């Protein structure tokens, strides 16, 4: 085991002690929420950071995952251990159905299409009262059980969300460092060149969209079984923007960035609570400062001072146009 892997393993074990050290229900709840948001933001990172495709519908997938798992567990009495994976699968399927037509678009048009999808999902959740109970939302969502133990406290539920986070990090890391990951990065850098290299760009873009939706669905399902109440107002366009800001602030092209951004922006409003009604102003200013001075996110800043921190794979040099040697440059 090399030193980097050892450091990651030690950090993971230390973090697992979080609910044993922290006793405040408030901090534990914010911590659990931050981890859940991190799962959704990692997904968005695969789409935006790895592939360079903009989506403003992550909150919609978050909502679809939440409602799917909640409805299955309420209507059929199934265990959340069954309904959460089913919700992830369902969200991925919706992602595929939406991604296929949408990913023919690019840039601003793709962003607009995803905004439209997000609004449709929220209106559906509000208006299809027979299925979703409308704006009143769903109550009585069961918490998961582990043998005789009901995981209905923030302490015990921490291990559910933490497990999901580690799994998400592992999947995203495997994707990033595989043939798929390299194809996605090639698409991000230059879609036409990637196509010329024989990459089926539509297929890979849809794959990235499906992965992003699945991670969003997982996050949504996890939050539904934690709060045990969901309503459509939580899955708004604003929430999608928050996910995007988390990713950009953290650093969009790395997994560490996605996790850091989610945790930072979940805790920031809580840290600023003493400022009462002026906190939004400070929060906004902090985000602007971070975007200006850290264009590559927090992780970009760390990398600038410690280049060995999460080294990026070498840029595909072959895709860059060769610089023609002219008389000026030769001299």
């Amino acid at each position: 085991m090399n030193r980097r892997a050892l450091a990651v393993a030690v950090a993971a074990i230390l973090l697992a002690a979080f609910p044993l050290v922290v006793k405040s229900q408030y901090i534990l709840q914010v911590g659990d929420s931050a981890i859940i948001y991190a799962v959704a933001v990692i997904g968005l990172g695969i789409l935006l950071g790895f592939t360079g495709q903009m989506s403003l519908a992550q909150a919609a997938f978050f909502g679809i995952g939440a409602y799917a798992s909640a409805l299955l567990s309420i209507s059929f009495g199934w265990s959340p251990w069954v309904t959460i994976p089913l919700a992830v699968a369902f969200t991925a399927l919706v992602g595929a159905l939406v991604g296929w037509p949408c990913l023919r678009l690019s840039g601003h048009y793709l962003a607009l299409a995803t905004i439209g999808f997000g609004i449709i999902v929220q209106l559906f959740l509000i208006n299809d009262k027979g299925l979703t109970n409308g704006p009143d939302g769903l109550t009585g969502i069961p918490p998961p059980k582990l043998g005789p133990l009901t995981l209905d406290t923030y302490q015990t539920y921490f291990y559910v969300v933490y497990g999901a986070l580690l799994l998400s990090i592992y999947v995203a890391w495997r994707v990033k460092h595989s043939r798929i990951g390299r194809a996605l990065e090639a698409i991000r850098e230059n879609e036409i060149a990637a196509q010329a290299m024989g990459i089926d760009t539509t297929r890979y873009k849809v794959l990235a969209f499906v992965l992003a939706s699945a991670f969003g669905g997982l996050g949504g399902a996890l939050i539904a079984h934690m709060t045990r109440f969901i309503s459509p107002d939580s899955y708004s366009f604003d929430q999608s923007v928050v996910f995007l800001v988390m990713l950009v602030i953290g650093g969009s092209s790395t997994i560490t960035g996605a996790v850091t951004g989610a945790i930072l922006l979940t805790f920031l409003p809580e840290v600023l609570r003493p400022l009462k009604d002026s906190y939004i102003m400070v929060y906004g200013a902090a985000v602007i400062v971070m975007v200006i001075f850290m264009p590559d996110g927090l992780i970009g800043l760390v990398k600038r001072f410690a280049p060995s921190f999460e080294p990026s794979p070498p840029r595909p040099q072959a895709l860059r146009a060769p610089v023609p040697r002219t008389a000026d440059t030769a001299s």
Partner: protein
Amino acid sequence: MSVTRRTILAGAAAGTATLAFPNVVLGKGEPIRVGTIPPITGPQALNGEEEVEGAQYAAEEINSRPGKCFDDRPIELVIEDATSDNQAAVGALNKLLGENVVAVVQPVLSTQIQAMAPVMQKAGLPWMTGGTAVKNTQLGLRNLFRCRASDAITAHGLVDFAVKEKGLKKIGILHASEAFGVGGADQVETALKTYNLKAVAREGFPANTKDFTPELLKIKSAGAEAIIAYVQNPSDSAVILDQYKSLNLTSIAFIGSPAVGNPTALNTAKTAADGIYVAQDFIIGFNSNVATKFITNFYRKYHKQPDVGTGQGWTRDAFLLLADTYKRIGTTDPAKTVEALHQTKHWEGVLGDFTCDTEGNLVHNMSIGLVKSSKVSLVKTVKVTV
């Protein structure tokens, strides 16, 4: 004194009791910490500001009376911002619960109440809420109390007024497409059924709508004689009223939910609101000493009229009822307070008579007022007996 096993055990028991029941052993004059979670930021910030004023007014009223709550113990407010988001609201609640509060007042948003319900059920503290969705008091929480009239009471009152008093049978419903608006519109339809009537039109509008012309004209073309509007945001109400007037729809009676009569909405709409009817938990001019005193003193403190519906009125009542209950039972023990609150009978607040039913509903009356020059005058009070 020799240290025997018995003295050690007695000491340990006393120590445990002190930790377990800090409220019981607190001394005379010790402040009673009551938590409140208004939405200070976000789209509901206007309501939040009013609720903070209501809470501060109430604390001042309680702390200036002889004996304060009881044993000379004053109320100390612990305020946390619920924002307008459910998840953040639960966070604010958890923060409050970690600050040794003995009761929680707020919120007014029904979805936030339902999001907080699992946490509050475990906490067991008395919980005074203002959300009007019928479902709130049917969540199975014995510690939840509703300090305003439910949507069922308000909607039935509005329909009774339109159909029985005014003889208008063709009702069009205009509502916001969120929890409050849809829930209210459903209650209006239920109330219409008691008269064997059906709404001639039902038009919902999403958040941030700035043009209500299509909805208003659709209701007109359906032949409506009256519009019953369930709107939550005072800014939406102001725009709707302005367009109702400019489209010359004043021949159709306009009857609005409590937020339509919010002072900000009426001040913005100005003459466009003249002649409309609004539901209120309580309307200025109601013959009550408590309310008259509240309005006078509130004006002296804040130099404005209170919103006795969604804002300051019910918040003040929630705190005062808690304080009076503490005084009655001489303790702030949460379980005893919850039981005592269930015994509430004919307690007089700004919103009228408070009597607790089996579900924890305290208010069973609503009023209808007529708007003229941005002021509401009482037309009728509807009482629903428990």
